[in-house]
């Protein structure tokens, strides 16, 4: 029985697709057969970030409408055997998605995969609500600024009330906070919300803090999930997140400012 993870936020542009790609690659590299699904019909990005945009033949909407079977639509990642991508349609719109169709696809995938990562679109409309409907876990990606926190809060309310688990009164979706694009320098100066500030407003379990990093743009340009860039701080932070999610006790490395040699010698 697969564990379904939705990567969602409410706010756009906070790093959902970057996170989905990184988490899926991270889980697969640890030997867990994983599929990552793009739910952003019409504005698909996951295939770009995963570097498989030139191999897309069939997509999620083709499968729902019976035009292709799931085997035909799944794209195997060239770098990791255990990782598959199910891209979204670019030409259709989200009206083509429906609850039953998605349910059937997830049911089918459940037999073959250990983890199903659903990359949600921004917003709280159909694409987003369908991406989270069948979820067991939710990674709520938040930037440490007021609009993102407000939107994440809204999304938490929706997760608690409009999911399949909520409707059938089962154990609720497990919510994890992923604080993305964090800059300790700006927090220090008071320009950015701190981890404590965000925790106070959202009161949820902190899965990880991903630092702001120039390497993320370079990676997505190259079609490489950031977690494969072991030299980058963001990549390392995602690796920590995957380890933490799988149960390891990993200390948070990127909340405080990195001190250079001089900084450490002379304090401050």
């Amino acid at each position, binding site marked *: 029985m697969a564990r379904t993870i939705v990567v969602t936020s409410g706010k756009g542009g906070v790093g959902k697709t970057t996170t989905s790609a990184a988490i899926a690659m991270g889980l697969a590299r640890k030997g867990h057969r994983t599929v990552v699904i793009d739910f952003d019909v019409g504005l698909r990005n996951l295939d770009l970030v995963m570097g498989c945009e030139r191999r897309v033949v069939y997509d999620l909407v083709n499968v729902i409408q019976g035009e292709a079977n799931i085997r035909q639509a799944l794209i195997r990642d060239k770098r990791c055997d255990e990782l598959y991508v199910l891209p979204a349609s670019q030409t259709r719109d989200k009206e083509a998605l429906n609850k039953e169709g998605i349910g059937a696809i997830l049911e089918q995938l459940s037999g073959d995969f250990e983890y199903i990562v659903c990359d949600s679109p921004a917003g709280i409309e159909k694409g987003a609500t369908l991406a989270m409907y069948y979820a067991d876990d939710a990674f709520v990606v938040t930037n440490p600024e007021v609009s993102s926190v*407000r939107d994440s*809060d*809204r999304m938490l*309310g*929706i997760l*608690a009330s409009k999911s399949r688990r*909520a409707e059938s*009164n089962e154990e*609720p979706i497990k919510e994890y906070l992923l604080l993305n694009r964090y800059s300790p320098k700006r927090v220090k100066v008071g320009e950015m919300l701190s981890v404590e500030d965000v925790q106070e407003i959202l009161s949820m379990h902190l899965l990880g803090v991903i630092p702001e990093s120039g390497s993320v743009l370079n990676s997505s340009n190259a079609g490489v999930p950031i977690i494969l860039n072991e030299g980058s701080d963001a990549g390392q932070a995602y690796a920590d997140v995957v380890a933490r999610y799988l149960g390891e006790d990993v200390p948070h490395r990127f909340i405080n400012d990195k001190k250079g040699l001089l900084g450490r010698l002379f304090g401050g």
Partner: protein
Amino acid sequence: MSAPQKENPAESPFIELKSSSFTLPILKLFGNDLAVIGEQLSRTVEQAPDFFRNTPIVMDLSPLAAANQQVDFAGVVNLCRDLGMVPIGVRGGNSGHNRSAEVLAMAILADRNAKREAVARPEPAAPAKPAPNSDHVPPVAGNPTRLVTQPVRSGQRIHADGGDLIVTAHVSAGAEIIADGHIHVYGTLRGRALAGAKGNTTSRIFCNDMQAELIAIAGQYQVSENMDDSIRGLPVQVYLENHSLMIHPL
């Protein structure tokens, strides 16, 4: 009282005008199809014909007025009479409905519910309903206080109908909590809190940390901008005094 006298008939106590109240059944109409109304009404009366025989009833036309629908008023009245009921008046109708009622010499009764519904109307289709899971405990019979133990998230709306509301977590910005009685937030209040929603001016709002966007008691409201800085972030109570909202630290 003087003895009745034939010379001054105006002074003799032949009549007495007093007020009294009666509880009457209300027949609410949701559509204007006479055939369907007749069928559903007969089925209901069949279940307890004695209850309905010679019973005065009032017709509530508010759903029809809201949908701007006409109705064959005389037809409905005859249906009721055929089933043994005594229609005596209407309420909630629009001007058209009321004119038909007057023609048939029916009383036009005040719609006491109109104001209440305007204040406490449940949220339209938007996903702003309170979470239907066991953490939001509904009022228990005999104890109308509603207890909410999970954070009230942005966009959620909680309405404690007929009683007090207690929240033992925070209320996020963009959330709305409404109670007909008092509101207690044992956490940070960042959203909107409306107490005394049905007009109870003695209702109060209590919170551990006042950061509300808007507070209101019985319709008297104040937005965050107009609140004194000295009470922000403190445990406070809010109450009405002479139509003014008073916010005092606890």
